[in-house]
């Protein structure tokens, strides 16, 4: 049974689901599955996402009774999905991707950006220069090359568009730490896009 979203808050469904109401649990699944799927694709891959989604909702189901309501249910969902995604990546244990450090912006001895203004704008044109499929593949490759801590923060903040405060709650760190990780990820990904579009960091 699918209950319209406006009818009841997450917390009401969680309480009912924890009391054994499977329809309430399934209403939560339906409400969150698309968000969890999109997040899972970004944190792992389109191929791995279905397993990550299923495992995420199973963990939510198993631990419904531990959800205390001192956080938003959505925060809890993002936290579990992020952890499941990370475990999934580790289980794959593929060859570690090359880090992105070479793509950081470069400065001269005076602290001035080395590249010209035109060159510095190049990353903004990558979506005009690459075909859609190629860009999708390279964009995912860029996410994969980020260190775990940066990847989680960047995906949640910039791709899922959570606020810095929400990301801090999901990851259990201070907002300043989120800003530091997201900023570093932005510099790395921006430089990577620049190289893809034929420029320099």
């Amino acid at each position, binding site marked *: 049974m699918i209950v319209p979203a406006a009818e009841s808050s997450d917390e009401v469904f969680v309480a009912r689901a*924890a009391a*054994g109401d*499977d329809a309430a649990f*399934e209403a939560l*699944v*339906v409400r969150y*599955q*698309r968000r969890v*799927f*999109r997040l899972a*694709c970004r944190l792992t891959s389109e191929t791995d*996402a*279905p397993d990550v*989604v*299923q495992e995420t*909702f*199973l963990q939510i*189901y*198993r*631990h*419904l*009774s*531990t959800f205390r309501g001192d956080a938003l249910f959505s925060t809890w969902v993002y936290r579990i999905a992020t952890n499941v995604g990370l475990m999934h990546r580790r289980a794959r244990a593929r060859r570690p991707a090359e880090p992105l450090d070479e793509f950081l*912006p470069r*400065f001269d001895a*005076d*602290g*001035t*950006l080395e*590249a*010209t*203004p*035109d060159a*510095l*704008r*190049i*990353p*903004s044109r*990558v*979506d005009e220069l690459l075909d*859609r499929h190629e*860009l*999708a593949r*390279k*964009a*995912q490759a860029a*996410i994969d090359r980020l260190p775990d801590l940066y990847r989680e923060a960047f995906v949640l903040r*910039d*791709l899922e*568009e959570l606020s*810095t405060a929400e990301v801090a709650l999901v990851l259990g760190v201070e907002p*300043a730490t989120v*800003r530091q990780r997201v*900023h570093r990820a*932005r*510099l790395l*990904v*921006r430089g990577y*896009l*620049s190289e893809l579009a034929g420029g320099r960091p």
Partner: protein
Amino acid sequence: MRQIVCVSGVELLMEYMEGALAPDVRAAIEAHVAACPRCEAFIASYREMPRIMRDATTIEMPADLEASLLAALRAARGDARPRDE
């Protein structure tokens, strides 16, 4: 007033964008960027990047997966009732 060059402005950019800086540092960054075409260009591409990455990595959940997820969860729940913790 704190002296800002490109490297220190870039370092503080996200904190600047989120309003996490002291007013004097904020003013120093604005003064530098207003006179620095490199920083202006850098910031434009820094702001644009998340949208490009978002658009390039948005994958909608396939309809058949929506259907199979509920079925798979029902099957898995059979042996995974919530624990009393």
